[in-house]
């Protein structure tokens, strides 16, 4: 079953076409790694999926529901309530964590379930604590984010997204803001999630992670998907010269 179907996504920033009619679909439980040079439109594509950015053409279907489509009348998004409900199926983890600094770690996790789902605090605290245990941060539950290392912050951010029980997780360079020695702990949490068959789209510069964890690697350049394939094939036998050049530059 397809969890995400994106077709002919078009996105402009003023005169600049950032996404040039790109299409990608993601199966349930699949882990897709998106790689490519800086400015190629990876973040923009991810942010279009959950409507942090709005598209200028194309169609996006999430978990069988249409988020946006383009017809004779132009780009039409689902009505607000539906659109929000559909987007909630996707959790997102940002490069800069975006934790809420005025809330403790535990409060960061329970805030959205309380406000958005209207759940009682007591009802969700056990789940939130279980998630914190899972990412190895239960002892930090009452700390404020400022007291955490970058790797710990990002693990809290992952747990916070999971607390909303998403069907899909989107990651935008989750380890790029981290010191090299801290990336491992975050990648471990993501790998564990992949092993639990979470559907994931991961924009990353971590070629090791893409190679070992992803089911499929997508190479983007200048707003296009240039090449995609199984990691073993794409990394060892890239077909397109731009992919070859990029992979060489990453070595």
């Amino acid at each position, binding site marked *: 079953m397809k969890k995400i179907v994106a077709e002919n996504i078009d996105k402009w920033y003023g005169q600049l076409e950032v996404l040039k009619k790109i299409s990608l679909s993601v199966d349930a439980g699949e882990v897709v790694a998106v790689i490519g040079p800086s400015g190629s439109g990876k973040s923009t594509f991810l942010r279009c999926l*959950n409507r942090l950015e709005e598209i200028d053409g194309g169609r996006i279907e999430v978990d069988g529901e249409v988020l946006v489509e383009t017809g004779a009348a132009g780009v039409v998004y689902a009505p607000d309530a539906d659109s929000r409900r559909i987007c909630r199926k996707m959790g997102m983890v940002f490069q*800069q964590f975006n934790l809420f600094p005025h809330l403790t770690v535990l409060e960061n996790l329970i*805030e959205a379930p309380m406000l958005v789902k209207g759940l009682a605090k007591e009802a969700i605290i056990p789940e939130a604590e279980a998630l914190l245990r899972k990412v190895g941060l239960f002892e930090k539950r009452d700390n404020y984010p400022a007291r955490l290392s970058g790797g710990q912050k990002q693990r809290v951010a992952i747990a916070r997204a999971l607390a*909303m029980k998403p069907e899909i997780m989107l990651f935008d360079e989750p380890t790029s803001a981290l010191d090299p020695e801290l990336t491992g702990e975050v990648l471990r949490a993501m790998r564990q999630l992949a092993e639990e068959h979470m559907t994931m789209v991961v924009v990353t510069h971590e070629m090791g992670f893409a190679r070992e964890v992803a089911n499929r690697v997508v190479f983007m350049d200048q707003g296009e998907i240039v090449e995609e394939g199984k990691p073993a094939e794409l990394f060892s036998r890239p077909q397109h010269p731009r992919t070859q050049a990029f992979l060489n530059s990453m070595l």
Partner: protein
Amino acid sequence: MEYVLSILGPMLEGTVLTLQMFFITIALSLPLGLVLALARISHFSFLSKPVGVYIWLFRGTPLMLQLLFIYFGLPFVPVIGVRLEDFPAAVVAFALNYAAYFAEIFRAGIQSVDRGQYEGAKVLGLSYLQTMRRIILPQVIYRVLPPVSNETITLVKDTSLIYALAMNDLLRTTRGIVQRDFNTTPFIVAAVFYLAMTLVLTWGFQKLEKKYSAYEA
């Protein structure tokens, strides 16, 4: 000493009026300032433009002029012209004026919050109102405490402008006594009163800052 005790009664009465002006102005201008700030940063220009003009008007003219205008001038304005008693007129002038200053403080505070906070809240499904109330404003409060503290201290002293409407606040009462008794001691007593009020404020804001700073590293 005996003299000081003898003037304490009327001076305390003046202080009560000063404090009334102060608290009512704060109670009105803080929420009004917040609403104005939200309108000012809104994407709807029919909200942000007029509020911009409002802020420019009230910060660009003397508070004394606004006070005199609302008391003496407003009755002659067509359509909206009303005649206000001295106390309500003063309250309206102070509240409108301070709301303009608070609006700018809040606007700067809200805009200083990183865009990532909105995005973090949005991807979790929070609505705009929930994001503002639970995520953005709590962080804004902490950041604006110092400038808000400044403004409130200024307000304590600005209340003395109501002497222009012949209202007997602390300062006007004091001046009356000085002129009656040919003695400048009441000025010193008044200074002590003002200092006491600003001291309490300073101390209160320090407490608040401490409370809200728990989350800073």
